[in-house]
């Protein structure tokens, strides 16, 4: 009798859990945001603000705490990626290290981390041209650029105007 009850309970549990598991498989995962630093240009955002950048549907979203800025992707006229580097020890500590004795600050300046840059040009509602620059970890800028191009943004870089669909789209 106990074995039979156990089997019934197992079947019931499987029936409850199976639809949930199937639903989880069919709903697409929300697109992952990229940690970026907005260097300059985004309306209403201070220079050098850290936040999350995400191509969400027809908008490019930048969020920083409660602040949220949307740029319609179809208003993006140019997307260009590049690379840069920054001091491994930055900020106030990096500035203070310049006063370290025996050239310690200079020695620390040799250590730098690589960055990707993403530069966009877009139009506001009045037709005014804006430009924005973001820095992000290496390898992220190209993915964002592909997403932007796939959603209808343009680029001045020849041969990339019609980007191949990203891995995310291919899965869908």
């Amino acid at each position, binding site marked *: 009798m106990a074995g039979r009850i156990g089997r019934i309970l197992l079947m019931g549990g499987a029936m409850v859990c199976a639809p949930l598991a199937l639903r989880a498989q069919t709903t697409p995962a929300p697109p992952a945001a990229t940690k970026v630093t907005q*260097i*300059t*240009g985004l309306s209403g955002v201070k220079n050098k603000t850290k936040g999350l950048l995400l191509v969400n549907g027809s908008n490019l979203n930048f969020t920083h705490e409660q602040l949220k800025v949307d740029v319609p992707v179809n208003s993006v006229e*140019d997307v*260009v990626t*590049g690379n*840069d*580097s*920054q*001091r491994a020890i930055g900020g106030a500590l990096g500035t203070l290290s*310049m006063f370290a004795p025996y050239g310690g*600050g*200079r020695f620390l*300046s*040799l250590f*730098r981390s690589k960055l990707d*840059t993403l*530069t966009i*040009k877009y*139009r*506001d509602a*009045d*037709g*005014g*041209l*804006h*430009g*924005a*620059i973001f820095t992000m970890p290496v390898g992220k800028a190209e993915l964002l650029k592909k997403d932007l191009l796939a959603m209808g943004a343009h680029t*001045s870089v020849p041969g990339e105007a019609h980007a191949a669909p990203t891995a995310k789209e291919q899965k869908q």
Partner: protein
Amino acid sequence: MSLARLRSLAFVGLVLAIAVPVLQAQSTTGPVKKMKAAAVKVVMIESNEIKLPAEFQVSLYEDLIAQLEKKSGLKAYREGDRNAESAADLVVLHTTVTGFKEGSERLRQVTTVAGATSINVHCTFTDASGKTLLEQDIKGKVRFFGANLRATYDFAKRTAQLAHDNFSPTAGA
């Protein structure tokens, strides 16, 4: 003639040699006559001959608009802004990059004297019909501290100062 007197005469001569040209320069230049303008439209920076990275182009443009808003006393409009069409006393700022040297922040921090970034831009202020009102070459540079993009901030500050010195909403009133 005593040595002390010779010394004092030499000192007076030196002071006069420095002071006279300075005073002459001050008396000849005088205040610049300003042109009437209430707004400036900034056209995106052109760099046909010089290969300028996109981030420098955008940074130049954005810094220029920010500094013009802040320092020139003029209302700054962006390229393509429809509101600029109805603006009174509008001047248009065209900028062309004529020289660019991308330095290295690492080199600046390590050596202090090497690795400077500099950018030369030819600025032309025209009226709405395209007639040239003012032309000048302006240089932006970052020599010791800061990232390479700081050169664009330096350039923007100088250009805003040029606009402030030559244009005013109340000029000729």
